[in-house]
């Protein structure tokens, strides 16, 4: 009885079997990369807003503190979104007939809220608390990026779990003195730019970070990466 398959079939089948592993691997890699891509995370994607509010102008240009609008950031899980009243504190005096601010004035007059598009939106199964972060030396800019340079606000980081864990595993890489939390222009200590905390001068981030962990009583990476810390 003659062979049904040609001898070359052996090679093809071997190549297929081994190749399959690579194909699966490649697919998995592609999926993972796709998951991390800005198309999924919306990283760097400026959202259109009913009023083209510019942080660059208000924070970078005018020097308004973060907490003037995000009032709850030090006291609550939610940083707080300013009510229309906050806008009108100034804009009842300034740019009172600017067409760009028509929506703000309408909102104030009618009592109807402005509907902003959310830029930083964590999934509902994540518990995030602003209060604990800003009170333990995590700067606004560490997560939100240089908001003072954003004409329209966008997500500076992916807000994915691996990104969170990067800091939760080693907070000493990012911590800064509490006095610098709201400082957009803060830079990590180096030999050129020294940082002093409690009378001690630091020239490198790791030493500063380790001391701040002790000073602020920050828990161990084991505690910070426990599932129930964020998924309650």
């Amino acid at each position, binding site marked *: 009885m003659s062979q049904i398959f040609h001898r070359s079939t052996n090679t093809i089948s071997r190549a297929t079997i081994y190749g399959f592993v690579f194909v699966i691997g490649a697919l998995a890699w592609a999926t993972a990369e796709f998951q991390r891509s800005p198309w999924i995370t919306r990283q760097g994607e400026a959202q259109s807003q009913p009023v083209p509010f510019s942080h660059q102008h208000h924070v970078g240009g005018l020097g308004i503190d973060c907490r003037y609008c995000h009032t709850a950031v030090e006291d609550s899980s939610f940083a707080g979104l300013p009510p229309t009243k906050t806008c009108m504190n100034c804009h009842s005096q300034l740019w009172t007939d600017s067409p760009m601010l028509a929506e703000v004035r309408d909102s104030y007059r009618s*009592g109807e809220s402005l509907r902003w598009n959310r830029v930083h939106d964590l999934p509902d199964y994540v518990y995030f608390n602003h209060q604990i972060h800003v009170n333990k030396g995590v700067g606004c800019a560490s997560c939100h990026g240089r908001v003072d340079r954003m004409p329209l606000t966008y997500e500076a980081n992916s807000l994915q779990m691996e990104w969170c864990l990067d800091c939760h595993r080693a907070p000493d890489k990012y911590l800064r003195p509490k006095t610098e939390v709201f400082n957009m222009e803060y830079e990590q200590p180096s030999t050129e730019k020294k940082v002093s905390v409690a009378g001690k001068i630091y020239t490198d981030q790791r030493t500063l970070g380790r001391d701040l962990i002790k000073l602020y009583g920050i828990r161990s990476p084991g505690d910070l990466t426990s599932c129930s810390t964020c998924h309650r």
Partner: protein
Amino acid sequence: MLDGKKSCHDQKLIQIAAAEERLELAEVREKLAQARGPKFWRSLEELAATPQFEDMLHREFPRHASEWREGEKGFSRRDFLKLSAASLAFAGLAGCTKQPLEPIVPYVRQPEEMVLGKPLFFATAMTLSGYGKPLLVESHEGRPTKIEGNPDHPASRGASDLYAQASILSLYDPERSQTILNRGQVRPWGSLVGAIKKALAQPGSGAGLRILTGAVSSPTLASQIQQVLKLYPGAKWHQWEPNHRDTARNGAVMAFGEPVETHYHLDKADVVLTLDADFMSAAGHPDFMRLSRDFMQRRRDPKQGMSRLYALESTPSNTGGKSDHRLGVRASEVQLLARAIAGRLGIVSAGPAEVVHEKWIEVLVKDMQSARGRSVVIPGEHQTAEVHALAHAMNAALGNVGQTVTYTESALAQWVDSRASLRELVSDINAGKVSLLLMLGVNPVYDAPADLGLAEALKKVGLKIHLGLYVDETAAACDWHLPEAHYLEHWSDVRSFDGSVSIVQPLIAPLYSGRSAHELLAALTVSTEQSSYDIVRAYWRSQYKDADFESAWRRWLHDGLLANSGFTPKQLFAKTPSLPAEMKPAVQGIEVIFRPDPTLYDGRFAANGWLQEVQKTVSTLTWENAVMVGARMAQREGLQYGDVVDLDYGGKTMRGPVYILPGHPDHSVTVHLGYGRTRAALAGTAKGFDAYPLRTSSAPWFGGGASLRKAGERITLATVRNHHVMDISELGKEAAAREVVRSATLDEFR
């Protein structure tokens, strides 16, 4: 459960249950008789240690929960785990999706004090049977979420009860009444006001006006009612509370000549005697939160010396469970024994010739006499007026008045005899004197005494208007129904048991355009529409003499009470009640005891699923009521759990399942009011049986002459008495070995 619409599956379960749940009560009693020292057990099945019970104990899941097996319909545990794993995997996959774009909507003008993401707390009060329960309510961005007691209020000190806790569910209940109805047709507020004005426009028609409310302590509401009565001469105000305190009132009148309120100070009492008084349940005493706390204060700190509690009671209760010495007697015997005790104390001349529980009384009297000024006698809310009068005399004779017992005026605006008030209304209706009847937050068609025939009489009233949270039995019998605003939705005020006034402030605007009794009554007196806020504020502005009303008002709202608005004690001395020469209990046949349901109260909370689901005190029943009998009676009559019986009483028959309640007095049964509602939303309709048709105005809490017969049917009762029991090889052994329940003498405890 008794609507006869059981599925085949249910029937099968019932048969299984009937075959297996057979208790040999004789054996149980024998076992108990042999036991020495403290023994802890949860249920009669556990005590009997039947093979069925042992079997249940060793199963991981109850029989009915694990009966789905492979091959039969449904799925196995393996299938269940497979599906769970798949669900989990898909849930994980869902995490990989792109977050949708969401809007974020800030306030236009953010309320002051608010920190977004953090709750605010507001002091308010809930009214139950006229008495205020001071509360502190948690609110998230304008939505109330959690209710607790107000720690700054003397009547609460942070405590709340199950009705207050569960009332948050009623607030959001979509089955609450939502629209004004005129014979089933939706109508606007203006039409209702027009109908009232039209009815009152005819000359002399004011004399046909009747207002029926529950017990009222709200100073604003009381003043509004007085205004209406002044404006319409001949009009009358009636009050009806199913869980009324008539005997407490009438007892006080017997002792003092006026209806005064009695306050007990159990933190100062060394010896406490309760005469069928359940001061540790929300349905048992309006001041139960403070009483329980004061009592337990003496238990927590043994250095001060523990107080001793003697409980003389009929239906087993929380108080009996906490007592050091409990004596279970029939409800009608309580009065007899109270008289015997009073006789030993030398208050009434001659006690009855023979005293059954002589030893018990002797020890008690000795104990009380050695604690003069530091003892308390508490009569039961559900006992007779004579028992109350005797208790007042005993407290006076023991020197307790001014020490552990004080008297003040009642928190209620007018403390009337509830039954007499309703009887007068019905006779006025039957005499054709009533043309307009306003029923404010009451449901008398369901809960009025059966002998008054109120439902029938209502047909003779020209215009009947009902204000209520639900379209209930009374709403269905009325021409107009007006949805009532929940207490978290409107402004009002209320007095707590101690007399302190709390302003009831809303936490949210009415969800279903409900109105308050204040707004409805204002429609009778003023031409312009007034909000509850305006009415309550105007009243207190007129009462407040100092200049700065605004800051006083803000202080009241913040604190949840008007400082020092509680009553000051009165100096009173109880008269010895003149009692009939011989008091005989009505000992023919079986005695029926009526009690408000531990969770549904008088039935008003029947639509609240949480209160249906929570287990009842002592019996652990859920979602239904039962005919409670003692073990001795069950043994004699051959009754098992769930046996359906017909209870004949006063010429009427009621059908319900039996529940064996250890400790229940013999020759008597307890039925709880509040079930068998016909219109109480989904959660409350057609659950359990209605005991109100048996309850008359002359015997509101107990009556004799009943008989019981088996109907030949058996149902499974929803009870948790055998849930989570632990493996025990011998009665109480395991519990003792592992010290789950610990017991020690006072010396050891110190």
